[in-house]
């Protein structure tokens, strides 16, 4: 009895701090990959829209790979490929890199859709008013395009936030991994999983609702 009591102790309030710290790590890795991935996705989405031969035959199939292979496999591959080429990356680094590329692939398609949503007559009108290509992009395409695909982008961002739970396979202690650790110690799976789930839900649900309302308001 003495020896087991060391391993199995009940849930304490200090464990809440442990969970909060892990939640912070979830936010950190998803925040970094969403912002970097969105920036890269804007560039690649623009390239996809411009539709030169390179983007249709190389870029588009390449980005498609990241949407057709499970994220968990991508993570394991990247984590085990880095040492092969002599890099030494910790779980956070490889997780962030893979999540960033994954976000880029998803956002690029959203951005392409946004630019495509602006009709060609509108763009011709802008150009015939004497706007340059980039003026047209900034003052005409971006306001209309963003309204068209902002909800889709929110969906992608929330999806990446939820998928960041998978980085736990590499050993990065984010929220879900932390809850696993606590479950092993306290043997109270329901309570701890409910806490972890409540955090994800509390983050994702209001944002999803907000974007839904925004979508409704914009479509009127």
């Amino acid at each position: 009895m003495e020896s087991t009591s060391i391993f199995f102790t009940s849930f304490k309030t200090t464990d809440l701090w442990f969970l909060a710290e892990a939640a912070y790590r979830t936010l950190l890795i998803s925040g970094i990959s969403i912002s970097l991935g969105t920036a890269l996705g804007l560039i690649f989405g623009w390239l996809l829209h411009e539709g030169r031969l390179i983007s249709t035959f190389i870029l588009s199939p390449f980005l498609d790979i990241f949407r057709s292979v499970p994220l968990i496999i991508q993570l394991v591959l990247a984590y085990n490929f880095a040492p092969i080429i002599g890099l030494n990356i910790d779980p956070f680094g490889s997780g962030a890199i893979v999540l960033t590329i994954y976000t880029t692939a998803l956002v690029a398609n959203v951005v392409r859709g946004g630019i495509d949503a602006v009709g060609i007559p509108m763009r011709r009108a802008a150009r015939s008013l004497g706007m340059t290509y980039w003026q047209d992009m900034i003052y005409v395409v971006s306001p209309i395009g963003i309204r068209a695909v902002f909800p889709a982008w929110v969906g992608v961002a929330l999806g990446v936030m939820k998928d960041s739970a998978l980085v736990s396979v590499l050993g990065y202690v984010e929220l879900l991994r932390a809850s696993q650790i606590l479950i092993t110690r306290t043997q109270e799976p329901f309570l701890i999983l409910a806490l972890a789930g409540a955090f994800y839900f509390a983050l994702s649900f209001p944002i999803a609702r907000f974007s839904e309302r925004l979508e409704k308001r914009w479509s009127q």
Partner: protein
Amino acid sequence: MDYNFHWRPVFRSLPDLLNAGLVTLEVATLSMVFGVIIGIVFAIIRLNMRGPIRWFVISWIELARNTPALFQLFFFGFGLGAFGIHLTPFWIVLAGLTFNNAGYLAENFRGGFLAIPDTQMRAARSLGMNASQAYVRVIIPQVLRTVYHPMTNQMVWAVLMSSLGMLVGFRELSGETQFLASKTFRIFEYFAVAAVIYYVIVKIIIGSSRLLSFRLFRY
């Protein structure tokens, strides 16, 4: 770069991997079948009913859409253990995927039902059909047509999500890959081949759904 790739053990166990790929397809297909049935029922309940049943349906949908799929699998795997319910890995994955699919599909179907004009229902009823006949013969076929592409996407997601089975000990494609990789320590090689198999599975699903759509939606 002083790493030697060893592909031979991977190719020797290729039959095992392909068999595991079939297991992946099987669990994904089953979860889609259940997900579509539950999704249609949920969409109808959410649109037409009031009271506790509707609240149950809404909380299922929102929980499925706003928490990670891995969390849902862990819940079915470990969380239910608190109530003395212990599922085998196959049922954990099937239950988790079905829970998730049903949530997403219910929202797709709700959009599909809203896209059907009321007059369709009224026309069906005035032809003498009762409510269930009208749903089965008139409304749902049209809904299935509008949600055909989201359903294909969801099937692809189900295949990709089933890879999480690896973390609850289910031997589908990822689980089998991990099992074989841990026997030989050729982790990169095994997972690279698994990635190729996943890619092919996804392409086959998308391609066959496109072919099927030519056959289904001729008029």
